[in-house]
């Protein structure tokens, strides 16, 4: 069975899970205050950032710090529960399919959910920027190329974090622990981005990247910038380790 068709099957499994609705509600809640408080964007003289950039970056920061990682934890619960209920996992393991492939297919589905949520955020950004432009009589809409670049950076930076959450949900059978550790690990990311060892903490990556962008766009406000040298090797090794360990653990409890 090819990898693509496995991913297709996994997507079909979560077809009726209503997860898309939850992600959609989250993005609407994210941008709603930005529309109401659009006037604040004109008061950022101290930071020296233009109103339209501030509108975009503040929204993305709101998403990257809590909502996006937390949705990914919910996504891992979804992928896990789909297999656990009614012993679906046992049936999957009895099929002539490589378990490593199965595990990776599920991870790809998780990445798809992440990409989908970011795309929805971008879509909602354009809607809310359009509304804010109407109410404030100022053009808040930015070039699509720039917006997609920022969104793409958040997504790329989130891959190590998502692989860590996936490892948690695969290896820890007690669901409350995997959810609890996942959710609790998001909270300190605000503190971690201000330390020197931020690159060792994958949950802080998306928020760090978008904060660094804020520092770049604001003339009078400096934030620590991305240094590729300790970061890229650290991120790559975390991702590879997490995926490797989760492939090893996948279905182990059921195989015993």
């Amino acid at each position: 069975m090819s990898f693509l068709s496995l991913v297709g099957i996994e997507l079909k499994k979560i077809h009726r899970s209503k997860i898309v609705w939850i992600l959609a509600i989250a993005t609407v809640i994210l941008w709603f205050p930005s529309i109401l408080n659009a006037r604040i964007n004109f008061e950022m003289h101290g930071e020296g950032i233009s109103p339209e950039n501030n509108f975009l970056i503040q929204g993305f920061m709101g998403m990257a710090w809590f909502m996006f990682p937390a949705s990914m934890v919910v996504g891992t619960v979804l992928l896990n529960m789909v297999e656990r209920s009614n012993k679906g996992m046992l049936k999957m393991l009895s099929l002539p399919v490589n378990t490593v492939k199965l595990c990776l297919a599920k991870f790809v589905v998780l990445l798809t959910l992440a990409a989908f949520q970011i795309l929805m955020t971008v879509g909602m950004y354009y809607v809310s920027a359009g509304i804010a432009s109407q109410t404030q009589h100022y053009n808040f809409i930015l070039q699509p190329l720039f917006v997609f670049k920022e969104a793409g950076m958040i997504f790329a930076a989130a891959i190590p974090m998502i692989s860590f959450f996936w490892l948690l949900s695969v290896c820890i059978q007690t669901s409350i622990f995997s959810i609890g550790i996942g959710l609790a690990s998001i909270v300190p990311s605000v503190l971690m981005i201000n330390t020197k060892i931020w690159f060792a903490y994958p949950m802080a990556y998306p928020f760090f990247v978008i904060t660094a962008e804020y520092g770049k766009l604001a003339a009078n406000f400096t934030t620590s910038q991305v240094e590729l040298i300790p970061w890229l090797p650290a991120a790559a090794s975390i991702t590879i380790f997490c995926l490797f360990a989760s492939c090893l653990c996948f279905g182990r409890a059921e195989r015993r």
Partner: protein
Amino acid sequence: MGFEMEWKKVKRTGFIPAFLFGGVLAAAVPVLNMAVRSEVVLGIDAPPIQSLLNANWQMMAMLNVLLVVAEACLMYHTEYADNAMQRMCTLPMKESNLFFGKFAFMAVMCVVILIIENAAIAFCSFHWFGRTENILVELFQNLGYELLLMLPAVLCSLLIASVCINMWVSLGIGVVCVFMATMLPTDNFILSLFPFALPFQIFAGTAKDTVCHFIMAAWIEIVILTMIEVLFLKVRRLFE
């Protein structure tokens, strides 16, 4: 009876270790914060408890609320998994008793984690501020206030968990609600009455009037949420 039954059910689900671990984690926040950057907190010109809570409570409350949401989902997941709920419904007891048993259990666990957290704050103020007058009375008041403000969040997350059969739906809605609570402006009284935003309030340094308003609002929310749950269970029973 409901309480005892809940204790038996959650014994092997990791519920209690998770609660204790969450409490210890939240209690570690002020200790670590003081250990790393005590000069910032000591520099605030306010009574010790107030400056400690101002510096740390947002993060501690966030951990508490996330813990409550996750545990509420788990509590109802044990009922809905493998259709245990249908068996529960055939027992000679009201379905709402199940809810109240769970609520009582969660409330007791909330007391436990709040004691752990307040003990950590007491430790910080003894160790770094070194002043002892009236600190215990203030901490007990703080504990009671935080507990009362946490109960609407507990009820609301249990309500969500009892409505949704699938765990990820209830967890997802709970997480979205917590996210909404963090997005709400803190200076608006009406908006900060959102059940998941209430636990973020701080007792120390708040005007007496505001505290009274929040206490009243929390009681009203508790009554309303309980009524909604009882009503919902009755209506759902009709259509099952």
